[in-house]
């Protein structure tokens, strides 16, 4: 894509978010958004830029019936079972998340992000820092051939440094790849790495390495987060490995 195309797309994204794009042009643009991740990012950036000025609009009180109707639509009359449309496994994840005590809220978000993104992960890890606050969540995409790494909480950033994920399996520390500090990263796994990841006692650590140096064989900086790899064959028992 050349600069002119990028500029046109960015302009369309702005018009879409402002709300002025209409009719066939709007429908075509919405189809483009659905098919183009970079375009989705452009739209999100404009939403973030413009949403705050909506706060200048005066507040107004909706009637009491709004909440009643929301409840009726989602939960039915007095039904205890919310219709979130989620998969059966969500309740298992919820129970796991609620068992995390003080960290429940953060990890709940993390685990529900996992639910939203992948049908059946086989492993996951939550990397926590020295204060036991979650910093990264890592899970596979259901085939142990690709890992998804999501930053949570405060981003791991330092001038001239980039976060790097490592697998610690027994005596070996293996580089898994460099991470985006503020966004999702996908890392390919070859067969040896996949096998090492599934080994008993495998752990992941994250360090901040010199961003200009090639990825080394071993970390050169202290671990800022670490967490055990949990296999999801038996969620109840694997959850206890984490804490």
């Amino acid at each position, binding site marked *: 894509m050349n600069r002119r195309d990028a500029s046109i797309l960015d302009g369309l994204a702005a*018009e879409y978010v402002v709300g002025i794009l209409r009719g066939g042009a709007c429908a075509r643009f919405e189809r483009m958004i659905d098919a183009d991740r970079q375009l989705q990012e452009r739209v999100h950036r404009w939403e973030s830029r*413009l*949403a705050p*000025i909506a*706060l*200048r609009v*005066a507040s107004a009180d909706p009637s009491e019936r709004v909440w009643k109707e929301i409840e009726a639509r989602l939960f039915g009359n007095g039904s205890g079972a919310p219709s979130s449309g989620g998969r059966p496994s969500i309740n298992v994840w919820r129970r796991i998340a609620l068992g995390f005590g003080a960290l429940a809220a953060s990890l709940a978000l993390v685990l529900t992000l996992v639910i939203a993104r992948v049908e059946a992960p086989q492993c996951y890890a939550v990397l926590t820092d020295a204060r036991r606050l979650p910093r990264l969540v890592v899970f596979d995409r259901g085939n142990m051939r690709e890992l998804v790494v999501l930053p949570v909480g405060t*981003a791991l950033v330092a001038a001239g440094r980039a976060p790097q994920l490592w697998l610690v399996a027994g005596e070996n520390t293996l580089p898994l790849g460099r991470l985006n500090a503020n966004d999702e990263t996908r890392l390919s796994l070859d067969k040896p790495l996949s096998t090492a990841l599934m080994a008993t006692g495998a752990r992941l650590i994250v360090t901040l390495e010199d961003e200009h140096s090639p990825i080394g064989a071993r970390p050169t900086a202290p671990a800022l987060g670490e967490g055990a790899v949990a296999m999801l064959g038996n969620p109840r028992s694997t959850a206890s490995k984490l804490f």
Partner: protein
Amino acid sequence: MTTPGFASDRVRALSVQRAAGARQQSRPLTPDLAMLVSRTALGDRRAFRLLFEATRAQLFGICLRLLRDRGRAEEALQDSFVRIWRHAATYSGTRAQPMTWLITIARNRCLEIVRRRSADDGAWDEERAQAQIDDAATPEQRSIELEEARAVTDCLRGLEDVERSAIQFAFYDGLAYSAVAIRLGRPLGTVKSQIRRGLARLRACLERA
């Protein structure tokens, strides 16, 4: 032995402490919206209710301004919270402030309705619309978002008057190009160019900020 003066100082000090305590208790609670969204993602209905209570007035105001009809705005608010419940798990705090995410959901729902019913032809009460732009004191809990709003507002002020008005008519009132052109009394092509130029200048300003 306590002197009368000292005793009355202590009484005064206790009164001040009690008054301070009372002030603290009466201060509005600051909801942690990110926490409420994450609990909502877990299916926590109480957190969902608190999220609704904390944001309903602001989101309803936005919908009312865009849709200009209480009934439609209430329906849009309902739809928005149904989406919030169903999609809370997709919220990412690294990408957006929680209020930004909530506003985006509500605005998108309202804009879908606006696009469907070609609201541009509807009757318009200019005075009422201006009254709904609120520059008065704003709640403490939205300080981060308001800081961001300040940056956008400053950049909007830097645009030419006609560019700013055109963007505001579209953003706040859900007007299409043709309706903005009528409102400004300018040719459609000119208004399109002005809005596009204004948005490009707005982006450049925000990137510098």
